[in-house]
């Protein structure tokens, strides 16, 4: 098998007005461990971009670079750039806290706070010292997350009493309440049953009309169903470590029906979900 160094088949970098984020992860380290290299992505406005690949290929790591969540990991070092609104969010002058208010995140495990449903959704509004009608915003966020009808009569009960799928939609409502431009979703359905998964996928199609979404998923069918663009990452073990890198990215249909790279073909063909 040939060396896996090549990655000439990346999608051409678009600087057009429909690009919201332009990402280049040249090298990413956790301590001495090189976790990701040579991964370029362009995330287009009001589309869904999926990151797929085997476990340990760094897809979650790449996603967490997009709102600087990796800053919390000790020994994290990043070389490259993430352009958002014409600025590199890894620039010294950028406040990571502010970045996270523009680029929201939904996690793998539903993680509502141990407070009422209402206060969970209002959390971000309060952080941003929103002075308007909070109830109105909470309602529209819950409607946006297709949760309003289920919870409108129990807004002041604990969020932890809800089912997993409801909790995850609450987390989505909480994330969209402050109207971030981009929504990052890190395997949002992996802890959910198929019915709840379906609801979240339908919801993503609705959210796409107003937000730009990047999602990590280990479920190929899910990427196929929801994503406009798909990026396939793989693990390079040639230098002894386990370094993830981008094999190819492009239109979802292209990636699934006519992948250019052999690794992608093998991975897609091995699908059994």
């Amino acid at each position, binding site marked *: 098998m040939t060396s896996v160094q090549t990655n000439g088949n990346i999608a051409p970098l678009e600087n057009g007005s429909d690009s919201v984020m332009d990402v280049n992860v040249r090298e990413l380290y956790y301590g001495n461990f090189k976790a990701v290299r040579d991964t370029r992505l362009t995330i287009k406005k009001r589309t869904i971009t999926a990151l797929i690949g085997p476990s340990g290929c760094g897809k979650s790591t790449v996603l967490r670079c997009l709102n600087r969540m990796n800053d919390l990991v000790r020994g994290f070092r990043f070389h490259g750039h993430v352009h958002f609104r014409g600025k590199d969010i890894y620039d010294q002058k950028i406040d990571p806290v502010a970045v996270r208010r523009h680029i929201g995140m939904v996690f793998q495990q539903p993680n509502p706070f141990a407070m009422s449903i209402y206060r969970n959704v209002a959390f*971000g509004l309060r952080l*941003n010292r929103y002075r308007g009608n909070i109830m109105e915003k909470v309602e529209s966020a819950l409607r946006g997350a297709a949760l309003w009808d289920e919870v409108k009569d129990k807004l002041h009960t604990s969020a932890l009493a809800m089912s997993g799928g409801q909790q995850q939609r609450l987390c989505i409502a909480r994330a969209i309440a402050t109207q971030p431009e981009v929504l990052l979703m890190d395997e949002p359905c992996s802890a959910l049953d198929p019915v709840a998964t379906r609801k979240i996928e339908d919801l993503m199609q609705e959210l796409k009309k107003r937000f730009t979404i990047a999602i990590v998923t280990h479920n190929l069918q899910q990427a196929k169903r929801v994503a406009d663009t798909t990026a396939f990452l793989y693990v390079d073990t040639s230098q002894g470590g386990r370094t993830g890198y981008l094999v190819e990215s492009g239109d979802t249909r292209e990636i699934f029906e006519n992948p250019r790279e052999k690794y992608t073909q093998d991975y897609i063909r091995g699908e059994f979900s």
Partner: protein
Amino acid sequence: MNDLATFATPTEEIDLPELEKSLRSPRTLFSFCMSALTLVLTSLAIIPLFSVLLMLIWRGGPSISFSLFTSLPPAAGMVGGGIGNALVGTLLVVAIATVLSVPVGVLAGVFLAEIGRDSAAASAVRFSAKVLTGLPSILAGVFAFTMVVLLTGRFSPLAGGLALALLMLPTILLTSEEAIQMVPARMREAAIGMGATQTQTIWRVLLPTARPGILTGILLAVSRAAGETAPLLFTMTFSDYWLSSQVMAPTASLAVLIYNFSKSPFENQKEIAWAASLVLVLLVLGLNLSSRAVSRWSATK
């Protein structure tokens, strides 16, 4: 060469027990005796608690009356009297100790659990707090005596409060640290992912979520401090009068009242000491029960 073949034929080598229970079998008998022994020893362990409680109710109970809580301690040879000023003094000194120790303890807990988790400062503080847990309470009194009584030139509830605060601090600090660490990492992540600053994460997510655990620690510390005598003996001493506007003065407390009156030759003062003991034990018991109620209430929420 089938090894399993040896299992096919019953063998006399392994002596399997009879199916029926029988006390004649040595094994069953031994097991029964050991179970009985644990029961006996458990009863032994709770005898002190119940004998103290029963004795207090028997000797102190009859003296409990409304006037006990509203009167001043009786002078030698007098009849009647109460523990009003001592109860107020105990509540005051515990309140002072709480005000002094809770902010320091909880914020230090925040530092240990969240801000400087692995710093050298944190491990030094953690170690000191653990050592401080075992500090003999009389030494806390010596500390407060030197820091407040010698400096201000008088015995006062402030000195007593400082001594008790020193005893409460390690409990509050260590339980706060633990309660904050118990907050699931994903909640912390959620807050940071929303663009919360570290301060916002701590105030709006970590502390509210850890509140029941922190409250339990505070109540346990308070209940321990309320019963302390030694540190109060030479920081507040005692007073036969109500608190006056002159707060920086010797002040009565239940613990010191018990200490003084139990040595008294006068029957009336002894009875007041019994009643005060009962009140103090009920106070501590009440605090303990409410701390358990707090943790149970949060578990079912």
